[in-house]
């Protein structure tokens, strides 16, 4: 179903698709409840579709100025890693992405 733009998030199947995009694990019951919620929510934001703004009102906002590109001290690695669920050799440990098979 990935890549399908026609999914409908008001159905449990559509919610399951959005949940996969958002990397959320849902039970079937949760998907059912969330589909009902999404139906009401999408109805409440439907009014946005009626907006046909005058192009001139859509001037882009000015960009914020970037700071000078200067090297400044940053967190020492051991402090940056202090909250890691798992760490080794000065890095974050994650499950293997590629397997031998």
């Amino acid at each position, binding site marked *: 179903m990935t*890549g399908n*733009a*026609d999914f409908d*998030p008001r159905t449990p199947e559509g*919610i399951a698709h*959005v*949940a996969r*995009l*958002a*990397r*959320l*694990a*849902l039970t079937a019951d*949760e998907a059912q409840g*969330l589909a009902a*919620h*999404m139906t*009401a*929510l999408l109805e*409440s*934001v*439907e*009014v*946005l*579709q009626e*907006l046909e*703004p005058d192009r001139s*009102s*859509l*001037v882009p906002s000015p960009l*914020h100025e*970037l*700071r000078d590109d200067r090297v400044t001290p940053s*967190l020492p690695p051991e*402090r*940056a890693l*202090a*909250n*890691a*669920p*798992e760490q080794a050799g000065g890095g*974050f440990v*994650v*499950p*293997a*992405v590629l397997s031998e098979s």
Partner: protein
Amino acid sequence: MSDWASATELAAQVRRGELRAADVAAAALARVANDPLHAFLRACPQRAHARAETVDAQVAAGEDPGPLAGVPIAIKDNLCTAGVETTAGSKLLAGFVPPYDAEVVRRVEAAGAIVVGKTNLDEFSMGSSTEHSAFGPTLNPWDPSRVPGGSSGGSAAAVAGGLVPLALGSDTGGSIRQPAALCGCVGLKPTYGAVSRRGLIAFGSSLDQVGPFARSVGDLAALLDALCGHDPADMTSEQPAWTGSFAEAAQGASLAGATLGVVRDYLELTLDPEVRASVEAAVSAAEAQGATVREVSLDHTALAIPAYQVLATAEASTNLARFDGVAYGVRAGAEGDAPVDAATLAPSTRRGFGPEVRRRILLGTFALSSGHYDAYYLKAQQARRVIRADFLAALDGVDALIGPTSPVPAFPLGEKLADPLAMYALDVFTVSTNLAGLPALSLPCGFTDAGLPIGVQLTGAPWSDLRLVALAAAWEQALGLDRRPGAQ
């Protein structure tokens, strides 16, 4: 147990050596330890004692510890505090100890304030009642069977309940102003960019702004002077375009000659009758002080909540994607569950999100998804532009727009939990100022017959924060309310 000393009085006494910061901090920590409102998630006594000792040593050495010398302050638990657990109200972040301080925390301590604890909030600031905290709700100091508002409900209750004179919160769609109104204290969302967001756990980055809570406009002003200013580490932060200090602006201010705009479209919406009457009486009081009141309109008011829902959730879905189980968070599978592999690492960790956060991530992900982006995200961005244009037009020749902060006073715990849309509707008067990037302040203006506080909101043009504080100071004096729970 409550203490009603003002922040400016406390600081003056500490600076003159009449009060020891260590004693002020110890008294505040005792109140936090016996917090009857669950306003606090945790105290930080070690940090507070060490900081108070430094302030006392500075006074003894004849140095000036700063304008907030020895003043206890509470920090919303979505602001990072080095060495002190910071959870954003989420189980997913339980045990997270930030390696650095949020810039606003650094600033208030540099001004002499003493951080005494971290306050409760709706998980990742997503809510209007603090009931979505993973660690249980905060109670309203005026009626413990009612909510304090949210998402910064812990900070509002801590200040209004007399536990601390000052607190920091954050406001993405009303999360400072609505709890200030429901708890009977003063709260300001500054102009977007006036205060650094470095170290604020992000919800909707283009809407989030850190701001102060206080029991009086004078105290609010003193805290704002410490908070505002450019931070090179926050790309959206700017040096404020005003001259002078908030403390000066709050003194000797007058409503005479001010022009206030009453938003017609807001008064046509469903409003609690006591809220309407109180706000109308406050407007009459401002007129009696010499303010001119005129009606203005905001034509696209009906688009505000829909546009906010789409944009805030879209930004949240992106910001919260970083909680994937790699760098922090409780890794599911670590405690005897099935071991996680690469495919399940993120989904299993993200089970730590509560139901409201999951709802919002799903809506945001949908609004940004291929095939739906134009119909939702893009339309909402266009709505944001026309809403801002409405505000700038309405503010032409007007010092501030005025109206209720919240359509209702504090409601019973649990009343709106089953109906998310009813909860979202409470933000009708607050979200548009975040969309437009404007400053807005909530000032207590009266009480319901049952004794619940009511707030009036002042909204100004970009960078008019100083003017809003001056008007609020004069209005506060004209209203002359006693805002201590139980004192009426």
